[in-house]
């Protein structure tokens, strides 16, 4: 590993000061340290925020739920309130990664983790996202890449939890040390078309303090398909939620951002109870705009399957029948 400067922030002011000096935040460190060891991330100064205990925990507030930025994936997986009110949310993380990773990885770190593209993650491939000239996925092996074209780079967004947050229109509360900022998660993530080098709008001098879920959905479900059941990222996943006579259908791991399946949402409309037939139609609609690459056509079928299943599961139905 390269040597790097290290500091520990005790409070927002200290953290803001560090960020001002170009420090990079380390929360659980799962993704950041991996990136540094692979010499993809060349940060020279790291500030740990794990001591800022005020950023940790799940609280009910203003009719919604606030999840502190440092709350770990397992704290979310085990939370009774969320389990009852919004089961899809703990479901997105209760089987993600490994038990050890889940004890350390934080919600903010999870939504900000960098893409898993195997060209991006290897220093030898100087790809577009690393300021290079080409996306190697175009002519190379793109089994795990995007099936929805959104620009010249073909990453998928790696976060399990982000689609659940997008589904309920969560707000990302950030700070620059002086003023709180709020981002609507529905336009927080950036497609390669919008920005080739960044996956979200958070500027370097700000940090996330909490994720606020304004309202719990009436129904929700999460469904994923993985090649292997122990520590593997999904090939496709879907979160479906129902609130105020509206469905949110969000696809994950198939596009550069958590993908709102608007066409599918239009198919189901206001209907609270969805039957097999309607679920299937919605699933078909969800993949209408998919354009797989040479190696990943099978994942279009999987995207369809997870949409169908998530809708039925949210309605309490057996999708295996």
């Amino acid at each position: 590993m390269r040597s790097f400067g290290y500091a520990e922030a005790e409070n927002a002011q200290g953290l803001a000061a560090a960020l001002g000096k170009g420090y990079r935040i380390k929360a659980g460190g799962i993704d950041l340290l991996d990136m540094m060891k692979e010499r993809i991330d060349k940060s020279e100064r790291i500030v740990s925020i794990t001591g800022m205990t005020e950023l940790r925990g799940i609280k009910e507030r203003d009719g919604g739920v606030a999840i502190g930025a440092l709350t770990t994936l397992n704290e979310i997986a085990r939370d009774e309130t969320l389990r009852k009110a919004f089961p899809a949310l703990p479901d997105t993380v209760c089987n993600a990664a490994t038990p050890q990773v889940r004890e350390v990885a934080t919600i903010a770190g999870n939504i900000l983790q960098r893409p898993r593209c195997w060209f991006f993650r290897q220093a030898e491939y100087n790809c577009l996202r690393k300021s290079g000239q080409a996306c190697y996925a175009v002519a190379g092996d793109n089994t795990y890449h995007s099936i929805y074209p959104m620009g010249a780079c073909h990453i998928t967004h790696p976060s399990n939890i982000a689609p659940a947050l997008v589904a309920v229109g969560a707000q990302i509360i950030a700070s620059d040390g002086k003023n709180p900022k709020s981002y609507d998660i529905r336009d927080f993530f950036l497609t390669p078309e919008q920005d080739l080098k960044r996956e979200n709008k958070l500027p370097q001098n700000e940090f996330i303090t909490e994720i606020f879920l304004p309202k719990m959905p009436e129904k929700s479900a999460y469904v994923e398909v993985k090649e292997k059941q122990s520590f593997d990222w999904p090939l496709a996943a879907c979160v479906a939620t129902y609130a105020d006579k509206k469905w949110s259908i969000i696809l994950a791991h198939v596009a550069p951002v958590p993908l709102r399946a608007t066409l599918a949402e239009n198919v189901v409309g206001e209907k609270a109870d969805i039957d097999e037939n309607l679920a299937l139609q919605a699933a078909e609609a969800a993949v209408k705009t998919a354009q797989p690459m040479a190696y990943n056509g099978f994942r279009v079928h999987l995207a369809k399957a997870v949409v169908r299943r998530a809708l039925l599961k949210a309605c309490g139905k057996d999708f295996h029948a």
Partner: protein
Amino acid sequence: MSETTAPKNIMQPKEPRPDVRQKVTGTARYTADQYPAKVLYARSVRFPFGKGSIVNADVEKARAIPGVVLVDVKKGKSVNYAGGIVGRIVAESKDALEDAMEALNATYEVEQSRTNPSKLYEGVPEADAQANAELKGLFDGGLKVVEATYTTQVQTHSCLEPHGSVVDVRQDGVEAWVSTQAVMALEDAVSNTTDFPASKVVVHSEFVGGGFGSKFSLGAEGTMACRVSKERARPVRAILNRSEEHCDGGNRPGSIQYMKIAVKDSGEIAGGRVHVVSTVDADGGGGGIRNPNYYKFGNVVRTEGDLALNGGKPQAFRAPGFPQGSFALESMMDELAAAVKMDPVAFRKLNETSRRRIEQFDRGAELIGWKDRKADGGTPGRIKIGYGCAAGSWGNGKGKCSSDCEIHRSGEVEVRVGIQDIGTGASTVVTDTAAWHLGLPRTMVTGKVGNSDYPPGPGSGGSVTTRMTVPAVRDSAEKALGELKKELASVWKTEPDKISYGEGVFVNPTNNQNVAWKDACAMMSGASVVGHGRFNDEYWGEGGSDTVQFVKVEVDSETGVVKVKKVVAIQACGQVCNRLTAENQVCGGIIQGISFALFEQRMLDPMTGGQLNADFINYKVAGPVDVPEIVAVLDVRDTDTGARSIGEPSTIPTAGAIANAVANALGVRVRHLPITPQRVLEAMLEQKGAIA
């Protein structure tokens, strides 16, 4: 869960390995844990793509980094696989070494690689005229004929502890730690490489984190460690990182296996055509797919060949050539059974070559619940249940081994054998064999392995370690006991062979009094007595390594996800030295077989030839949730009086049994490993025209 059919010939029924505490608390020191004072770090510079050379590298910048001792890059040297060596860096610390690697900022010339076997495959060659005439008779004779091509992927060894050596060449000799499966052979290799006589070389490998066939030689890293240590008069560490391990740490070659087999209506296999190709590295060699096997296949015309890829060199890998061959031939067995409308178990029993396995098939069928097996694709709904089975075995030749058994005055027994414990429990076998032979509690015995100064034992390949070690350890224990009796005889003024001994008690023939082991040992004239043992036919006994496995799977026919729910293994291995380690070998073989069947595959980029998954995230190895209930039945009979192989046979049948279970579940056969969701969906589209 586990079960033993006959506990009689089991030396140690339940105790865990004596070194279990060291292993789970991390105090067991492996090669990768050795950091002698003033150690230097060495690593090869490697070409990251399939074929080409380094055009430019900033060697000066790398050399200028503080702590960097040596940078050596061969620009223009052509390389034909990702991971091929083009230079080396030596530094005072791992960080300085990696800084230097980065500073090279190499640019490459990349040529088109050969990465895709199915595109390069040239098909089945014409057989010669006579063979053709015979085949024509078979295929045109009104028999049922099944023709299919099966493929398997390249699997890397993925040892948890990477390959590596830590070598300290001093003025008076060499001390080396090597992660190896052959500690004696490594002494020879280190001696040759450093130019020191073997008497001045000691190699340690007390703990080894897996080898699976890939750790028999010193390797480029060990050679580098020896040379640099000699040049610099400092200890040198050269341990591969995970990416190097995947690219250049050995692999199980892939295969393309064509089979066209004729079967009589009676179920008897008449014979046919088999052509097997293994995917090897650009230099060729190292293939060797074992197909057909186990069953009476009649008159088979067989050809074989190699297909060169721009990938790392294959190495022997746990039952080399067998899991690939077994997958294809066991798949074919089920396809043939279907062609003559027979039950797969009945069909196998009819064509079996081993009486033991015929019995094992009955036992396994009962334990898996074979009677619940439905017609192919017969489960209602989207989640399909399937059952499959397959067979395996292993050849058990005699060999060489020697052992020293030292009985101390305190009564404590120490047994030293120049073998190595690559994770299998070899040191446990030494301890338990000596304790059992001497009739002592195992707490009084310490088995020691992994040191080249011990009496020479075999390298751990071909599942020989236990079967060669046990007769030598028993011989040494018997001889040490003889030495002890001589001591007692001189005290008691009698003849040694008049002294009887059993279960920790000697009988003094002069007064017929019992003397306990410890009291007897206290009478010896010196500090200890030693028995030098060799592989002794007297302790070879009877036994074999036949096995069958049964598998139950659950397949999601909408997503193609396969989950193995249960595996039953009926495994013969002769006499059992320690039941837990023996069952552990069976479970390990099965888990590695599941991983081979469903997950693992080296992925070479078609554009660059680089390995895209040279890590443990995209190179997918079965994890805890992927491991099913395993019922490991040690099939031990009264006649099983000698220790036999277990490590390799236990991994042979798994993939074939899984493939058959998947075909039974879906009514669609996946003929290509690994059976990923993608492959299942593709097979359904191809064979049924639709998914689910």
